[in-house]
C-alpha cells in the first residue's frame, strides 16, 4: 500500500473515531434521559472550577453508605450493580450491591469508594458534578448554602435505564436551580 493511501486511511480512521466517541456518548445519554426511570437523590453541592469543562456545582450524595453481603472479596475501586428503589419521602434508596446486574428492577453501576472492616462501603456514583455557566455556578452555591439548613434540601433527579444513569436536573428548594436563581434576588 502506498504512503498517500495509508495517509488517507488513517485520516478516515481518525474522522470515524472523532465522530463515533462523542456521538455514541450523546446518543446513549439522550436515550436514557428520554426513556429512563426517574429517581431523586439528596445532594450537598459546592463550587470548584474545572479548567476543561467550565464551571460546575460539585455534588456529594447523602445516603451512599451501604452494607455489603458476605461471601465476596469486596475491594475499593470495584464496580458494582446497585438496585434502586423509591422511599416514602420519594427519594431513592440504594439496595444491596452485587458484582453482577440484577435480573429485575432498576439499578445503577457504581464504584466502591471505601470498604470498611465492618462490611460497610461508600458508593461512588457515576456523576459528581452539575454544570452551569460561569455566571450561575457561584450563585447556585450560595443558594445551596442558604437552604442547606432548611427542611427543603438540595437534590438531583437522575434517569436510569439498564444500569446506565444520567443526571437530569439539580433542584434547590423544590425548584430547578435555574428557576430558583431567576426568582431569587442576587
Amino acid at each position: 500500500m502506498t504512503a498517500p493511501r495509508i495517509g488517507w486511511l488513517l485520516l478516515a480512521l481518525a474522522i470515524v473515531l472523532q465522530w463515533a466517541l462523542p456521538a455514541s456518548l450523546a446518543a446513549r445519554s439522550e436515550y436514557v434521559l428520554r426513556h429512563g426511570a426517574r429517581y431523586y437523590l439528596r445532594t450537598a453541592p459546592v463550587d470548584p472550577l474545572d479548567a476543561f469543562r467550565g464551571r460546575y456545582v460539585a455534588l456529594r450524595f447523602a445516603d451512599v453508605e451501604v452494607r455489603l453481603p458476605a461471601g465476596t472479596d469486596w475491594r475499593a475501586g470495584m464496580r458494582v450493580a446497585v438496585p434502586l428503589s423509591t422511599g416514602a419521602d420519594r427519594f431513592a434508596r440504594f439496595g444491596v450491591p452485587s458484582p453482577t446486574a440484577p435480573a429485575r428492577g432498576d439499578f445503577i453501576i457504581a464504584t466502591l469508594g471505601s470498604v470498611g472492616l465492618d462490611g460497610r462501603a461508600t458508593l461512588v456514583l457515576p456523576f459528581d458534578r452539575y454544570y452551569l455557566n460561569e455566571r450561575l455556578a457561584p450563585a447556585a452555591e450560595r443558594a445551596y448554602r442558604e437552604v442547606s439548613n432548611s427542611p427543603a434540601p438540595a437534590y438531583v433527579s437522575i434517569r436510569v435505564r439498564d444500569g446506565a444513569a444520567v443526571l437530569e436536573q439539580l433542584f434547590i428548594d423544590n425548584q430547578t436551580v435555574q428557576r430558583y436563581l431567576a426568582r431569587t434576588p442576587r
Partner: protein
Amino acid sequence: MTKPAAAWLRSELPELERAGIVDAATAARLRAHYRAAADDGGFALGLSGILGALLVGLGVILLIAYNWDSWGRGLRLSIAALPLIAGQLACVVALRRTPPSRTWRESAAVFAALAFAGALALVSQIFQFGGDLDRYLLTCALVGLPLLYALDSSVLAVLVAAAFTGWVGAQPDARREPLLVLLAFASLVPHVVAAWRENPHSWRSSWLLGWLLPLCLIALSLTIPSMRDVAAVWFSAWALLLIQIDREIGGDAALLRRPLRVYGELGWALFALAATFPDFWEPHGFVRVAGGSLWHAHAVAILVLLLALALTARAAWRRQWLLTALAVPTLVIAVAQAIAVKWPPNAMALLFNAYVLAIGIAVIADGIRGQRLREASSGLTLIAVLVLLRFFGGEWSFVVRGIAFVIVGLAFLAANVWLRRKVRA
C-alpha cells in the same frame, strides 16, 4: 546564505562532484546543511500558522466551557460539531495539497485534535458526566494518534505526549503503570524514527526529541512510588543514558540540534556538582541507603540504569575514556544504594570535587585537541561553577565572596580568550 543562493549551491553540487572539486561525503554534508537551513526557514514561517490553529482551538474550548445552558441540547451539540467539521475539512485539504505543505498539515492536525477535545468535553458537560480527567486525556491522546500519522504532524505528536503525561498525573497512584506509560510513548516512536530518517538535524527531529524525552521522563517518574528514595540514581542514570545515546547517534551536529546531549550534560553536571557537597551524602540527603532502596525502585528504573551502564561499557570498549568517566556519579550512587552502605560524607564530597575538576580539565584538553571551542568552553564553565559553589557552601563573608567572584569571573574571561586563541591556532 539567502534561500536562492543556497538553492543555487545545491544545484551546483553534482557538477562540483563530477569535476572532483568536492567528494561525495562533503557534497552530502553540504546538502544536509542547506536542507536543514531551508527547513528552519519554513518552520519559522509555519510557526505563525500552527500558533494560530492552536489559539483558535483553545479559544473554541474556552467558549464551550462557558456552558450556554439557555440553549437546547441539540443546538449545543450542533455547535460543538462545527469546529470538528472545520478541522476535519482542513485535514482533507492539507492531505490533498500538492506539493504538500508542512504548515497546513501541522495546523490542520492540531486544530482537528483540539476541536475533538472540545467536542468531547461539551458532550460531557451537556450530559453532566463525572470528572474522569485521566480517561478524558487518554481518549484525546489515543484519538489523536491516527491523525498525527495521517498528517505526519510533529506538533500534534508533542500534544499527544503531553496528554499521555497528563493522563498519568491525573490517575490515582495505585493505577499508574510504568509499562503502560512505555507502551503509550512507544506509539509515538515510528513518527520520531520517520522524522529522524528524513533529516536527523532538522527542527522536527530536535523538536520531537526535545519535548518527548522530558515528557516521557516525567510520566515515568510519576509511576515510581518510592521516587524520593531513588531520585538520585533515576535522574543521573537518565542523564548518562542520554549522553551515551547522543554519542551513538548524534554525530557532529550543533548543540542546539542535539537535545539529548543538552539534557544529558545538564543532568550530569547537576548531579556531579551536587555530589561535591557533603550534605548530598548525608542519610537525609539525596542518596538514601536505608534498606537497599535501589532494589525497591521499579523495574523500569533498574532497566534505565542497566542500559546506561551497558552503553558506557561500549564506550570503554572503544577507548572513549572521557565518555566512560562520565558514568562515575551514576555508578557510585547506584552502588551506595544497592549495598546500603553509608560512606563518609566529607570524604565523598572531597572525592567528587577532585572528580569534577578532573573532568573539567579533561574536557578542556579534549576540546583543544579537537579544536572544538564549545567543548573547551564547557569544561571551563564546569570548573568555574565548581569554584563558585565552594564559596556558596562555606562560611565566607560577603566581602570575601565578592572578591572571589570577581577574581573567578576575570580568570574565566581571560581563560576564554586564551582558549579561543589556542583552538583557532
